[in-house]
């Protein structure tokens, strides 16, 4: 087990990348603590699978280094890195029994048969596969097969990290929750570094201690689920995480403060002099009806059970607000205010006043 460090990592699938878009992964510096549960979250095509394959050694990066502890493993094979990986679609060896499937990574490494038996039984118990050990793996359901893939990742004792590449994609919704809790439970038991790639925010936020949010080949924010929700450092994070996403309203800047429709908006941060393309970001949870404030008009109300999502028109922009179920919605013209502690100014997508990463 070791700390994983990525330094100056870049990757392109083209042999001569020229433009910015040619890079599947733009320059990246990251450190993963030993034993942590991480999630890589981002929309499809943002480079998260590329990053995962570079960590596991299935892909050679164009630039930069991958360090496990102090050892440079940039060009080492997956086997030399002692990495386990679970893929999007379950991979089982059809002709083998469940037992042989689980034993496969150990037998390939010449582990003694008594140890293999002991270890496989232990892992089977953890993953609820004990009853099926003698069955042919090909006859199992998708979630059973994915459990085998998972078990094969856990069976070795010397793995540095276990990587998951959207492992729950083909699993039925009601089993997804079960498997996810299982993963979480396994993480606390085996205490391995786990990196979980997903485009589903619920999966990422429930599984990980720390979430790495990616967009178009770049890491936009790393933080705990709470940090990502309460203090998004990028409008993308604000929009991508949370349902509905953060309201993003173009605004003018006067002396570091945001101006919207001539009103000064109180915000948590201040804009700098050189900031351009400025917007106000505020989550729907922090928009309130008020006696004084901005003029607004309610255009739609959607009841989503425990809360209501209200669409409002304000200063030529449409905003969303999230209020509790029992709160009255004023009809027609009203006034709204933003919670100053949760309202921020962003420039070119990035949070103003933040040190350049």
């Amino acid at each position, binding site marked *: 087990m070791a700390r994983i460090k990525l330094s100056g990592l870049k990757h392109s699938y083209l042999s001569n990348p020229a433009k910015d878009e040619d890079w599947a992964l733009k320059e990246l510096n990251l450190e993963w603590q030993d034993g942590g549960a991480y999630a890589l979250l981002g929309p499809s095509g943002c480079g998260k699978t590329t990053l995962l394959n570079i960590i596991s050694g299935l892909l050679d990066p164009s630039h930069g280094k991958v360090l496990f502890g102090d050892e440079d493993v940039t060009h080492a094979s997956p086997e030399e890195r002692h990495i386990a990986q679970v*893929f999007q679609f379950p991979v089982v*060896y059809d002709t*083998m029994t469940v037992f042989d499937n689980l034993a496969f990574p150990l037998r390939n490494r010449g582990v003694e048969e008594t140890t293999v038996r002991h270890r496989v039984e232990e892992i089977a118990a953890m993953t609820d596969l004990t009853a099926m050990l003698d069955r042919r793996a090909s006859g199992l359901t998708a979630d059973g097969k994915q459990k085998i*893939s998972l078990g094969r990742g856990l069976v070795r004792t010397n793995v540095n990290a276990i990587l998951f590449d959207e492992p729950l994609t083909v699993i039925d919704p009601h089993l997804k929750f079960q498997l996810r809790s299982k993963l979480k439970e396994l993480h606390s038991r085996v205490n391995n570094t786990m990196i979980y790639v997903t485009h589903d925010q619920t999966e990422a936020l429930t599984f990980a201690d720390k979430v790495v949010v990616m967009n178009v080949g770049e890491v936009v924010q790393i933080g705990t689920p709470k940090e990502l929700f309460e203090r998004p450092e990028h409008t993308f994070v604000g929009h991508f995480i949370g349902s509905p996403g953060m309201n993003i309203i173009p605004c003018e800047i006067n002396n570091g403060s945001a101006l919207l429709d001539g009103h000064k908006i109180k915000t948590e941060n201040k804009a700098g002099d050189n900031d351009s393309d400025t917007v106000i970001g505020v989550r729907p949870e922090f928009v309130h009806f008020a006696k004084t404030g901005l003029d607004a008009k309610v255009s739609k109300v959607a009841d989503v059970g425990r809360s209501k999502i209200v669409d409002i028109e304000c200063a030529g922009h449409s905003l969303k607000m999230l209020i509790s179920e029992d709160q009255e919605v004023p009809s027609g013209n009203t006034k709204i205010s933003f919670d100053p502690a949760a309202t921020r100014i962003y420039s070119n997508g990035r949070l103003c006043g933040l040190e350049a990463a």
Partner: protein
Amino acid sequence: MNKTVNQKAWFFVLPVLILVAFNAIVPLMTVVNYSVQETFGNNVFFWSGLTWFEDVLTSDRFHASLGRQLFFTFSILAIEVPLGVIIALAMPRKGIWVSVCLVLMAMPLLIPWNVVGSMWNIFALPDIGLLGKTLNTIGFDYNYTRQPGDAWFTLILMDVWHWTSLVVLLAYAGLVSIPDAYYQAAKIDGASSWAVFRYIQLPKMKRVLTIAILLRFMDSFNIYTEPSVLTGGGPGNSTTLLSIDLVKIALGQFDLGPAAAMSLIYFLVILLTSWIFYTVMTRDEEN
């Protein structure tokens, strides 16, 4: 529920029925008819029961050609199937060379069978053929028209050249359908290339290989044109396969009864073997 009784639908299958009757049922029944009768010419037939079947099954000549046929079929299967798989494994999976390889592979399959026979007939001639002349020049005493061993060598080589491609194409189709994740998982699991072949590639190719073996079995058991053009069954009777022998009896000697009985036995051997093979190969999928 009351169903409407309307037998007019039968008219829809009538064209197919007529077609099948004329190209399968009528010819087959004619053969069955011949196999149980004796004729002395003039289109006069006498009932002879199962005499011809007994004759064929106890004749040394039939046993000998059946033996040669089995030897031929199993030899070419033993060569073409592993060779085809090896070539398919060696073929590129990506890039422009894929189509080049596929076209090259498909080439022999496009050549008419009697042309293949003629080509090899000339290619292997010991005095002027490229293969025959070369073999003799480097010191082999090679003459496929005189020596049975050489005739067999040429015959099997010709079939391997002509039909290995079929196995290659089928095996290749099976290989490219394996998702990348399997290879990646095998890498992570530390599998050797032998283990990858044994536990991933071979199981995934099993279906197409079953079809390849079945096709090659049936085709090689029926083979007539190529050996007949190449060796004509000679030297002597040494390469007289079942189909060549059958033509000799039916059209050479005009022994319609024995020829008909032999045809039916021939047909049943192929049917039975294919059925057994298919049942065995697909049995454990059902479990």
